[in-house]
């Protein structure tokens, strides 16, 4: 069964464009969208809006934006890495910022990858393709807790 992609993105335009890019690349995995950091954590840990969700089922990869309302991207990352259940979850930081400090913090907190969102949409589609190819097909995900 295809695993889901968790896209954590607050900007509706970016959300639409990312979905479009994924579609253009024939990536048919389910895309779960969290519009802020709190929603992302709710989904991953089965709380709040997603209370009762089976938390053993985790997405194959998390595409995480950094600037999020309520709970910031890096804080989400920190919590994800701190919890036994989600410690090994692949997280790709997908953001506009190329500031050195963000990269330092991102990798420092245990992100698996850091991709800068290009302005040119063609490049964006390319980037989506590469991400899809790598994280969904080539990369071996960590074993799930019960499967």
């Amino acid at each position, binding site marked *: 069964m295809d695993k889901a992609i968790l896209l954590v993105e607050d900007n509706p*335009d970016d959300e639409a464009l990312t979905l479009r890019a994924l579609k253009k690349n024939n990536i048919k995995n389910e895309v779960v969208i969290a519009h802020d950091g709190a929603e992302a954590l709710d989904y991953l840990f089965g709380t709040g809006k997603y209370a009762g969700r089976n938390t053993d089922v985790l997405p194959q990869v998390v595409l995480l934006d950094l600037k999020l309302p309520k709970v910031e991207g890096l804080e989400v990352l920190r919590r994800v890495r701190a919890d036994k259940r989600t410690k090994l979850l692949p997280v790709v930081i997908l953001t506009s910022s190329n500031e050195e400090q963000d990269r330092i913090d991102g990798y420092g907190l245990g992100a698996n990858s850091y991709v800068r*969102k290009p302005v*040119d*949409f063609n490049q964006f589609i390319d980037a989506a393709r590469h991400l899809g190819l790598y994280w969904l097909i080539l990369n071996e995900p960590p074993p799930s807790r019960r499967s």
Partner: protein
Amino acid sequence: MPRITHRSITKKLTRMNMLVSGAALCIACVAFVAYDLVSFRQAMVYNLSIQAQMAGSNSVSPLLFNDPQAAENTLSALKAAPNVISAGIYTLDGRPFATYWRDRNGQGQMLPKVPATQTEAHWFKDGQLVLVRTIVFEGKPTGTVYIRSDLREMTHRLKRYAGIAAIVLSASLIAALLVASIFQRAVAEPIVHLAEIARTVSREKSYGMRATPTGKRDEPDILIGAFNEMLGQIQERDGALQQAHDELERRVEERTAQLAAANKELEAFSYSVSHDLRAPLRSIDGFSMALLEDYADRLDEEGKVHLQRIRAATQRMGMLIDDLLNLSRMTRAEIRKETVNLSSLARSVAEGLQEAQPERRIDFRIEDRLEATADPRLVRVVLENLLGNACKFTSKKTSACIEFGKTRQNGNSAYFVRDNGAGFDPAYANRLFGAFQRLHGATEFPGTGIGLATVQRIIHRHGGQIWAEGAVEKGATFYFNL
């Protein structure tokens, strides 16, 4: 606190005292003694003359009556004068008539001649006084009296005077010493005290000390007063200096804090720019693209071209934002200087450039063993920009030749990057390094015009200069030093 011994000033004072009193006394003594001796001599001569006269007049009769015995008796009366060594009466023709000797053993003697004009003559010879007198009776010379006296009394007198002088001199020298010791309290002590204080102050730099004034209102006191005043002034000035220094430090701290705050603000601004400005650009580009793709059949050529232009513009803005961010980062970045091997750095950059355009044959000529003291990351940016530009502007030439080396210009050494590409019109050379200034249209060569501005910023931060030479279609050379 070790006392400076008073030797120098006090010694001088003592010596001075002793010299003065000694000299005065010596002169006085010598004068008195000399005068006394002279008068004593005169007295002696006078006495001897009287004795001669008396002996002479008493010897007239014995001479006339040829009675030597009587003459000798007269002469023997001279025994009463202990200074007379010998005496003699001589006849007119110089024969001894009668003699007297004080001491038993007598010697023969020559009767010295009395000069014709005088009745009497005397002279001092061999420590004796000799007196010769013509005996005159009724105006006619009858004989000669001869008396010889020793100078014992005079010598004795002289010795006594010497003794007294010695005692007086010693006494006065002792007095001089005493006076000096009193003087030193008044004169030397305040000066010595001042010297001590000055030495201590100078050695320990403790300008709070003061010398104690003597209160006597003489020159040493004036000196002490002035000295204390000067110390006071030094203290004041020190205090003011310290205050100014502290004030300056405080201000520097303030400025540094302000600078740090400004930098932080700039960082936050850059962060915001890099994030928030790009997101809408993405939307514009993305949805223009979406329009182009999804509604291609409902758009005519012109519509499609409009959308292409929209996309091109947004992408260009993206590049501009990136370049500006870079420039700002170069200005803010800390410079950490170390020894950088420019040759190997240039080669690495050149390799990267060649790899990015494998279809082109670019001839890189890089001088060996070029080193400089600079921040390696920033210098890499400089080389990437300059060599990258050279690559870009030689893209239309069939064979591109790019050199990097070191040369001498105007007597100073400078590094240079030379290419044989499109060059530039030297008339516009002053615009080369302005931000976003370009001397070529976007259609000729791509670029935002920020590369050289960035390079210039970096070179200036290293304290160096950058300038360029070139001609249209004849290539360009960029010189810089660090």
